[in-house]
């Protein structure tokens, strides 16, 4: 947390403006905690680091919230938040030179829309798809996490990844194709 200690407080605001900003931030936090945590969880692969990453992401967001709100021009701030988490995740791997040893600690998803007879088979499929997802290049995996875990559309993903809408559409298409091929190779 030491890195976050500097300039955390949005500076030079009068108390009323500060209270209004804090209220808006609390709303942002409430609305998107699950998104940021889900992204972090699927990105780093364990609950402990996902909590750290989520906390860091919101601390950083708080520091720049005033400016982000002014510059967003009314557009949703979710892509901005996810971009912060995305950059932190990149640093996480860069700093510690590590990737998740196992795809996901709780990679035991229960298929919600399957009949009971398909559950056992379904679980194996889900494990496989998560393992294959982890083998994808970072940008492809991230785009799929944003699309499927967070339900973000192309434009939001493009903003979060700092790419054009067209490039993002191609990225997702290729990611799914690569995943299908990897599954077919099993």
């Amino acid at each position, binding site marked *: 947390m030491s890195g976050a200690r500097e300039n955390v407080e949005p500076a030079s605001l009068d108390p009323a403006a500060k209270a209004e900003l804090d209220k808006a931030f609390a709303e942002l936090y409430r609305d998107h905690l*699950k998104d940021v945590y889900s992204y972090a969880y699927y990105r780093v692969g364990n609950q402990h680091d996902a*909590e750290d990453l989520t*906390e860091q992401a919101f601390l950083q967001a708080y520091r720049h919230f005033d400016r982000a709100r002014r510059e967003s021009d009314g557009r949703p701030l979710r892509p901005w938040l996810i971009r912060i988490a995305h950059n932190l995740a990149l640093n996480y791997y860069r700093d510690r030179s590590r990737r998740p040893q196992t795809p996901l600690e709780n990679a035991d998803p229960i298929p919600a829309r*399957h009949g009971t007879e398909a559950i056992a088979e379904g679980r194996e499929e889900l494990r496989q798809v998560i393992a294959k997802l982890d083998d994808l290049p970072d940008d492809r995996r991230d785009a799929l996490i944003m699309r499927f875990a*967070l339900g973000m559309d192309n434009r939001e993903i493009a903003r979060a990844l700092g790419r054009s809408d067209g490039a993002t559409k191609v990225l997702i*298409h290729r990611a*799914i194709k690569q995943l299908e091929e990897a599954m077919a190779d099993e």
Partner: protein
Amino acid sequence: MSEASERITGSTWDVERLLDDALRPMEPPERLSGRFEDTLAAVTQAAAEELSDWAEELSESELRALRDPRNWVRPVVAVGAGGVATGALLLLELRRRGRQQTKSRLRSVTDRVGL
């Protein structure tokens, strides 16, 4: 999700459906909110204290020192001393070059007269 991709025909895997099932949103642990609030409160408090300490230190000691004309003598002396040192170095270098030129001129004269 329909925009995510066009279906890749010929595949036996419905990867989009699998991803939909596998990557369900994760519910953050309840302790995370409390933890974040505590951290944020601690960090903002620490930042405010640091800022206030720094401002106090600066106003009480450094600002007074900066305003005191007696403390301006030292920088002026330092600049003056620096100037004198630079001048002396220049002078030495000029004299060295002068001596070299004299020596080479003498050498050429001695060469010419065959000494």
